[in-house]
């Protein structure tokens, strides 16, 4: 004990304070669910989001990533996460339980398109030219990566099983682009926003694909929370933080990485197009 000097005592006191403070922080951790609509393979993007949100909210941020929309939506519905970046399609599937927190603004709009892509050397001019081919979907709960193409087929009385020789799921928009570019499949349904971002960041990948057709403009994948938690201070703080991303340094960094203009409030009516397509496939069932 005689050897304990002043520095040791100070260090020990600092450690004690940290230990006492941690349980309080742990109780206020904000959990955000992320899905493959996002460029979730990019660790830099993930870290930037976490850093920006922690700076804005002043609490620890835990990002929960899952392979499928179903899993992330499940986490949100069961309360395992406070909010989640979903897709318009699962949002509409559970619109009675979910509330819109924010919608990304891309190229000045809260809208995006679904791209039907094929290999660069594939001469197909439209979906009907891809009959009997192999096709990659992103996720069975993705609007751009599934619903758009399936509803287009449904309008012609077709299903993926009757129209394509084989269809696969890649559970990631970037994976759809890879599958088509590598020739694993002849065509794919991909998020138009993701394809455009990839075209800027990984042109060698998109160069081996070509866009066969684009869908109408549809509501951009939203950030949602459970309706019963929507008005909690933390969720509201989170919403505000997203809206203010464009005004903070870290937030701007995130937006730059995602090539988004910002986040905004939007009316649920921007998802009417998706809703209409959902109805098409529901009639087919």
């Amino acid at each position, binding site marked *: 004990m005689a050897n304990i000097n002043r520095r040791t005592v100070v260090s020990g006191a600092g450690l004690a304070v940290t230990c006492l403070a941690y349980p309080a922080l742990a109780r206020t951790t904000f959990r955000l669910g992320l899905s493959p609509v996002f460029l979730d393979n990019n660790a830099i993007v993930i870290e930037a989001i976490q850093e920006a949100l922690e700076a804005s909210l002043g609490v620890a941020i835990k990002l929960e990533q899952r392979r499928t929309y179903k899993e992330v939506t499940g986490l949100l519905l069961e309360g395992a996460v406070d909010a989640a970046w979903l897709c318009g399609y699962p949002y509409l599937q559970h619109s009675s339980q979910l509330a819109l927190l924010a919608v990304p603004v891309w190229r000045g709009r809260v809208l995006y398109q679904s791209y039907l892509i094929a290999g660069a050397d594939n001469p197909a001019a439209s979906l009907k030219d891809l009959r009997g081919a*192999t096709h*990659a979907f992103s996720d069975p709960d993705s609007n751009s990566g599934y619903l758009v193409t399936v509803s287009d087929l449904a309008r012609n009385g077709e299903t993926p099983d009757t129209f394509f*020789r*084989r269809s*696969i*799921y*890649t*559970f990631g928009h970037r*994976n759809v682009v890879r*599958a088509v570019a*590598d*020739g*694993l*499949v002849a065509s794919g349904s991909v998020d138009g926003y993701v394809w455009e971002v990839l075209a800027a960041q990984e042109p060698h990948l998109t160069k081996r694909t070509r866009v066969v057709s684009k869908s109408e403009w549809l509501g951009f994948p939203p950030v949602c929370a459970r309706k019963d938690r929507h008005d909690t201070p933390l969720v509201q703080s989170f919403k505000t933080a997203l809206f203010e991303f464009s005004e903070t340094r870290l937030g701007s960094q995130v937006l730059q990485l995602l090539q988004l203009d910002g986040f905004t409030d939007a009316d649920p009516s921007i998802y009417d197009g998706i809703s209409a397509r959902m109805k098409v496939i529901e009639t087919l069932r």
Partner: protein
Amino acid sequence: MAILARIPLSLRVPLFAAILMVLAGAFASQQVLSTLSRVQDDRLRELAILHVESLSVALGPHVLREDIWEVYDVLQRASGERRGQRMVFTAVTDRDHRIIAATDPRRAPIDEMLPQDLEAAQSPDNLSIPGDGARLVLTAPLAYQGRELGDIFTELDVSDLVSERRIAGLYLLLGNALATGVLAVMGYVAMRRMLRPISRLAQRMRETAQSPEPIPEDDIPSGDTEVTRLVQTYNAMAWAIDAKAETERRLAERERFVSLGRLSSSLAHEINNPLGGLLNATDTITEYADRPDVVRQSATLLKRGLEHLRDVARATLDHNRLDRSSAPLSHEDFDDLQLLIGPEIKRQQQTMDWRIEADDAAIARFASAPLRQITLNLLLNASSAAGRGGKVELDLSAASGGLKIEILDSGSGLSEEAEYRLLSSGPVQPGGGVGLRLVHDLVAELGGTLKAERRDGMTVISILVPFGDPEGRAAC
């Protein structure tokens, strides 16, 4: 083999050593290459098994769920994107060899049958690198949770291993060729050096084939090696041959005098008998000095006696004169022989026929010494064989191409030993017959032939000596 046998030993042994070195080098190279090949195969097999097993673990659940994307993604991540990678292509098929996914989907599209070039795949357990190909294909069942879900086909790039083997082979070949070349040359030089005394011995034997000469002490290899002992044995043999030649020379010399020795007794009588009459003549001259007629008669008697003595002395001297070898043969030589053999014939109370039918010109083509010696030796032997009261004959005639001398006697014939000495060239013991071996040797030197036969109860020894150069005489 005949060609090999013609190569001298001093060249054949070093060459053989060099060939052995080359063979040893080739064998060593083959062993090293085979070991390298085995090590490479083992390394590759280990790598292949590891690759296939880890793929099985990673792919199993995805294949089970038919999750094509995940199978493809795993294959992509497993193959990596590094340059110079070993696994260049991998495909996963179901049990019917229908493609589930492959690292290169364009080469092996999903749901299609396995490309034919992958059909001839090897199992990892007996994988071996081909001698020339740059790639090989291996296959292994894809097992998960004890079930065989399909197969994994992997194409391996083994060009670096093949190239490594080729380069190793080349370096080995060059290195071994150099090493064996140096060793072969060293072996050749060492062998040549070791065999040099034998080569020298062989050369010496070749050069001195007629009369072997010993190798000087300085040239004998030091130590107590086989070669030293061989050279020493050769020297001892050469000295022995020298000694034998000297002995034979002395023997021949002695045989030359044997005939005179045999004649000495009868020649002494030949000189002694007239001496009594000569002394009587001198007494008569002394006593009747005043009677001229008696003195004249005694002087005539004295002269005739002395002339006889002079003839006997001359014949004996002629026979032994050293420089007579160059003198031509003449009828006087046969007169001398008759004079020399005459007392022996008389002593033995024998009769002798003496027929000289060859003319002077034919006789003069030969040197006198050898033919005198031959004839005298044979006459002495004939007289000895004829015995008391026997008969001896001499026939000298010019035959076609030479001079023919025949000596006949009424004896019982040549003994086996005498015939051997006279007619053969084999080794003989001293003694036995009066210089019969000398007769054989002289006739051989003259290039003549000898024959012994029985004819009309007589023993006939025939000699035919050919005429040599008309100018020069057949010299001994």
